[in-house]
């Protein structure tokens, strides 16, 4: 198979659940895991006579996401009804946007392994209401839970610009970071806040001819891992199938396959794409949305620096490693915390180390946010600077931060003093101690002066004695310098 020359094409249809207070067209609160049919009202139940009223926050969240995805925001957009019958759809039409989406013609840049970026084009992003859920747990009957019905969804459609499963995963993760940064979605895949439906096929070059395999839409993907693995699986499956049957893409042979997470395979769900006629038409119950410059500018002002740009800046401006920059920028709260610490005068690299190695570690253990640990950004900054100035050792810095996790005392300097963590940097005092050590360890002094094999070990022993006499508080750098000066006399 390795001799087959092929190219993978993946486009994505992504549904992002917006983190608005209320539903898209009514005042019901959004709720995950609430008692079935407890977050419903006449509007989201589609009761006769009820009318939808647009949720402005959902529109603004979508504008914000659209802008972050480099889309044009339409000056005029409207609502359309998409008709189909399904028990989880109370009105038997979904309010969506058909020919005039809120955002269009954008792109998202994803980082590649070689450090470069790749643009994935976005065709459109439009707002719509989610359906409810059919439950099949009551024997012969199916039940419908409409808590989710009417939840605002942003549907994002990309061009088939991704050429590997890894690229798809990178885009998905980048998108998750972006919408979380913007605060427009919780973007938890397990909870269905972000649903990816990849369209996968291959272009195969054989004997100077190009063949396209039939497009497969993959559903039921509840994690990034599932997303990546399902595409890997599809690539192999489509290649095998092509080599076996020679089947190529035709009108109407697009199929839908569901990912089986346990067996790690895709399973055929729908053979042929049904010729759906959704009978779209403008919803007469809603008025079109006009976005003027003032409104657009107001939304633009809410944009923040996006994670990929931030990551680059951290490497460039603060000299952090790409890995560290990635860790810090993964979560906007962490990045903001880091930047607050830097603004408070903290040396970036030291702050980064304390934050990633001590702060984030503890936050993960506790399952809390970095801001909920106790020490503030300024405390991290001060501790980092004490370390930088040689007032404390790296171990002491870790101790100080750790003490702050549980103590009510939040002043790094006081903690250092109280716990005897300050380093002895007073050259005069250290010289006295060095002299004492030299006097009582003549053999080691002789070994150093003799040079050769024993020299280094002997010096280490002498410095160790100095540290012991100071109970570990001697600044090793300064103590070492004094020791070397004395030994060379």
């Amino acid at each position, binding site marked *: 198979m390795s001799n087959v020359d092929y190219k993978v094409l993946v486009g994505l249809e992504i549904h992002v659940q917006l983190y608005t207070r209320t539903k898209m067209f009514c005042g019901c609160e959004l709720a995950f895991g609430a008692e079935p049919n407890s977050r419903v009202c*006449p509007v989201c*139940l*589609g*009761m*006769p*006579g*009820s*009318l*939808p*009223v*647009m949720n402005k926050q959902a529109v603004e969240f979508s504008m914000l996401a659209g802008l972050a995805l480099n889309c044009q925001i339409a000056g005029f957009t409207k609502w359309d*009804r998409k*008709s189909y*019958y399904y*028990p989880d759809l*109370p*009105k*038997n*039409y979904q309010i969506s946007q058909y020919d005039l989406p809120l955002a269009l013609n954008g792109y998202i840049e994803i980082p590649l392994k070689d450090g470069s970026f790749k643009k994935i084009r976005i065709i459109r992003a439009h707002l719509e209401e989610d359906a409810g859920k059919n439950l099949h747990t009551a024997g012969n009957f*199916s039940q*419908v839970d409409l808590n989710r019905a009417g939840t605002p969804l942003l549907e994002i459609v990309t061009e088939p610009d991704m050429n590997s499963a890894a690229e798809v995963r990178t885009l998905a993760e980048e998108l998750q970071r972006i919408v979380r940064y913007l605060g427009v979605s919780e973007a938890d895949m397990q909870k269905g806040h972000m649903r990816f439906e990849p369209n996968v096929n291959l272009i195969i070059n054989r004997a100077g001819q190009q063949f396209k395999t039939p497009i497969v839409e993959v559903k039921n993907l509840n994690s990034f891992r599932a997303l990546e693995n399902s595409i890997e699986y599809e690539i192999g499956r489509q290649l095998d199938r092509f080599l076996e049957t020679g089947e190529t893409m035709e009108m109407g042979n697009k199929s839908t396959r569901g990912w089986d997470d346990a067996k790690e395979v895709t399973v055929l769900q729908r053979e042929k794409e049904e010729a759906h*006629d959704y*009978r*779209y*038409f403008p919803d*007469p*119950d*809603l*008025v079109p949305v006009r976005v003027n410059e003032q409104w657009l500018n107001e939304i633009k002002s809410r944009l923040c620096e996006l994670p990929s740009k931030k990551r680059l800046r951290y490497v460039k401006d603060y000299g952090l490693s790409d890995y560290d920059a990635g860790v810090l920028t993964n979560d906007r709260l962490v990045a903001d915390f880091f930047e607050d610490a830097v603004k408070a005068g903290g040396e970036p690299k030291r702050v980064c180390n304390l934050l990633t190695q001590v702060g984030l570690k503890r936050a993960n253990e506790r399952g809390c946010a970095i801001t909920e640990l106790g020490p503030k950004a300024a405390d991290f900054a001060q501790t980092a600077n004490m370390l930088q100035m040689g007032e404390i050792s790296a171990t002491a810095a870790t101790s100080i931060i750790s003490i702050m996790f549980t103590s009510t005392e939040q002043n790094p300097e006081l903690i250092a003093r109280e716990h005897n963590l300050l380093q002895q940097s007073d050259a005069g005092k250290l010289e006295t101690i060095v002299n004492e050590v030299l006097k009582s360890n003549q053999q080691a002094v002789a070994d150093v002066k003799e040079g050769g094999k024993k020299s280094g070990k002997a010096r280490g022993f002498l410095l160790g004695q100095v540290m012991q006499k100071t109970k570990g508080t001697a600044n090793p750098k300064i103590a070492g310098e004094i020791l070397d000066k004395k030994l060379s006399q």
Partner: protein
Amino acid sequence: MNQLSAKQLRDKIAARQTSSVEATKAVFARIAKIEPIVGAYISTFEEQAIARAAEIDKRIAGGEKLGQLAGVPVAVKDNMCTTFGTTTCASKILANFHTPYNATVVEKLLEADAVIIGKTNLDEFAMGSSTENSGLKQTVNPWDTKRVPGGSSGGSTAAVAAGLCYAALGSDTGGSIRQPASLCGVVGLKPTYGRVSRYGLVAYGSSLDQIGPITQTVEDCALMLNVIAGHDTADSTSVDEKIAPVVDYLAKLDEPVKGLKIGIASSFNAGADEQVRKAIDEAIKIYRNLGATIVEIDMPHLDYAIAAYYMVATAEASSNLARYDGVHYGHRTREPNDYIEVYTKSRAEGFGKEVKRRIMLGTYALSSGYYDAYYLKALKVRNLIRGDFVRAFEKCDCIMMPVAPTTAFKIGEKVDDPLKMYLSDIYTIAANLAGIPGISIPCGFDNKQLPIGLQILSPAFSEEKLLRIAQMYEKQTDWHKKRPLI
């Protein structure tokens, strides 16, 4: 037989010359006697209404200042949601349907301290011009019980005409307030689209539907509009009052419009029956005597109004009625084999013939490949008709024409010929397409003693002026005082 108008009754109750209980009981006594013949109501709430009337009387006795309709027994068309009783839309599919909320207009009636005594019959889902399409019962015309009351608000107009309530609400999608008002000899107003909230009005054609009053007099009509008009945050298509303020429609009602210019489209009116035309001409003569001038107007696209209307209304209806599927509420078929059968059989059993016809028409009009030729073209015609009115109103204050081409026709006369039935709406449909207000006021009788209505149309949100124009005529005539001898 009620002699008082709604406003007169309200004033008498307020002055404690009579009581709401007395008036309500009298209405129910009349209902007991006449309703078996007329069939105006789908449901009545005698006990509840009398209790409420008693409460209102008590509050009046306590010196409380009450709402504009305090103690007045009114009826509501049964396509408006009420938490009490059922909301059936005269359809088998909703025959036992209870809704958890009140329509905004119902809330407003209650806030105005009206006594809602019952819910009136209609053509199923307001689709029809004779109330014969009701899936639940037949309403007859109180002037001739062998004839239709018109439709679709035939229950409300028959109830007002027969003295089975003091005033009522109807809904008008293509003439459903004005045409039955004309056929029953009462006043019916379709306000401007967006003047009255549609929240809780079970939708038929959402871009055309509008709730309005059906009353004995123009003054009552203004009173009812005072109560129901206004912006509603629950209805995005209701108009911002900063753009179109709601005024007190009673305040200047008696001020005649000076220098009134009336637009007439002679050729268009020529299609009406001779007796109808004569009555309209006579009415216009009265206005002329009052100093009005007549302007001939050109409405070139009006001939296409019916075609455009039946595309737009049915397209919207096909979508609006998709929710009646037996899954969430309403009629569900017994023992379906699968969920598809829940849909197909529940709908087949629940909907009547005309509703099915319109759903089919609308579904077809919206289908891919036909959308441009039908729905989109209809929208273009709609815009042209709007333009016709805009141009016409540059030359005149209002347009006068018949409401319906004929007086009340016989029950069963047109049921087998839907096209003929659709043509009953020829004069009323354009106002819905253009979104402008229109009123029907009694202007005479034909030789069978059947009432004839004069239709007056005016620019969007000019209800105040429209009512004043109607009032000028009513003050000169006694047609509105005539009541059927039922």
